[in-house]
């Protein structure tokens, strides 16, 4: 003769289940929002300020304000994502685990790249500019240069070089300048 199972656990289980599902739903929602914001902090500015694309004034403003906040924003979002993923991991199905892992990878990518300046990967800056006496320069006389004269010091910046580096911080005749092309 079988003994009927105690009724209390039978009643409790669906309740815990429903509660658990509600908590898990909340955690998944927060996880998704954090993941989306981490991704937005990096990808929206990157998309807006890419070369050979028109930048509308408002889009540019959005790009700059996101990029300005991206290092901190992506860090907070990514950390929250990791904590939530840890909490969700045990109960998650296999495909949800894959989703968690993939999302964490993208979020980590956003947080890392938000701290890096990929424009300087395309156009490397000049770390410690070196200068040559004009007689030692091998530049062709027909090449174009930009020049300044400050406090008796004359400097020439070959455009062929500046068109690649784009920007150089220099001090000429005691005046700090930034040379741009």
């Amino acid at each position, binding site marked *: 003769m079988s003994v009927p199972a105690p009724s209390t656990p039978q009643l409790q289980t669906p309740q815990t289940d429903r509660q658990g599902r509600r908590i898990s739903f909340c955690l998944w929602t927060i996880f998704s929002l954090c993941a989306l914001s981490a991704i937005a902090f990096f990808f929206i*500015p990157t998309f807006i*300020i*890419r*070369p*050979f*694309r*028109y*930048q509308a004034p408002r889009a*540019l*403003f959005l*790009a*700059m*304000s996101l*990029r*300005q906040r991206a290092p901190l924003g992506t860090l907070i979002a990514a950390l929250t994502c990791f904590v939530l993923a840890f909490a969700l991991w045990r109960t998650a199905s296999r495909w949800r685990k894959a989703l968690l892992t993939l999302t964490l990878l993208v979020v980590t990518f956003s947080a890392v790249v938000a701290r890096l*300046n990929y*424009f*300087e990967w395309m*156009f*490397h*800056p*000049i770390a410690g*500019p*070196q*200068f*040559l*006496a*004009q007689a030692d*320069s091998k*530049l*062709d*006389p*027909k*090449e*174009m*240069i*930009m*020049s*300044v*004269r*400050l406090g008796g010091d*004359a*400097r*020439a*910046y*070959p*455009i*062929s*070089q*500046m*068109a*690649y*580096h*784009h*920007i*150089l*911080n220099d001090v000429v005749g005691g005046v*700090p300048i*930034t040379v*741009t092309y």
Partner: protein
Amino acid sequence: MLHFYLAGINNQNFLMRDRETGTWWQQITGKAIYGPLQGAALDLVLSDELTFGQWRTESPSGQVLAPVAKYTKEYDSNWEPDVAKLPVVISFPGTELKSRDVVIGLTIDGAARSYPWETFAKQSPVLDRVNGTPLLLVLGPDGKSFRVFLARIDGHDAEFFLQANSSADPAAHNKDWTMLDTTTASQWNFQGCATSGPAQGKCLARIPALKDYWFDWRNYHPDTTVYKR
């Protein structure tokens, strides 16, 4: 003291940020457009665009930025035609010029004017007035360098013309290149200084000017006028 780095692009005019405050600055205007220093503006330092040959004769003790060995492969001496091939993202149809036309742009008391390079080079020296200010735009002896001066000697408006045999010659550096002014009949060199005559030793005041593409100049100076000969 701020240190700037390349941080983005705004319609093919770059954006820079400074390491100290993270403020965003627009290259062409030197203005802080976003961030803690928003509204501030950098002072423009007078600069020239010259051939190395021209600069060398003017600056015997000058120093030249050395090429960085690691990146010499990236340097492009043919940058001008190469850049001209790149697409543009803004254009101003219905204006007098094409997007990639090169202009000399300048601003006098808020009034902007641009001089199409081809017109300027053919006509040099160009005498013009912007907001009543007399200007002298002149192509160098090498046919590539240019400078803009205030066309005034001792407070008096003056006119200039090239002395015979002083035509710009890109092939050979013309050492005898001189201008004459109609007021004192003095001889002037490309640096804007009188080398002989009653004005000897005097130099004309410089006017900052930018060699730029029409689309970029027009984008940041919507009210610019265009010089016509």
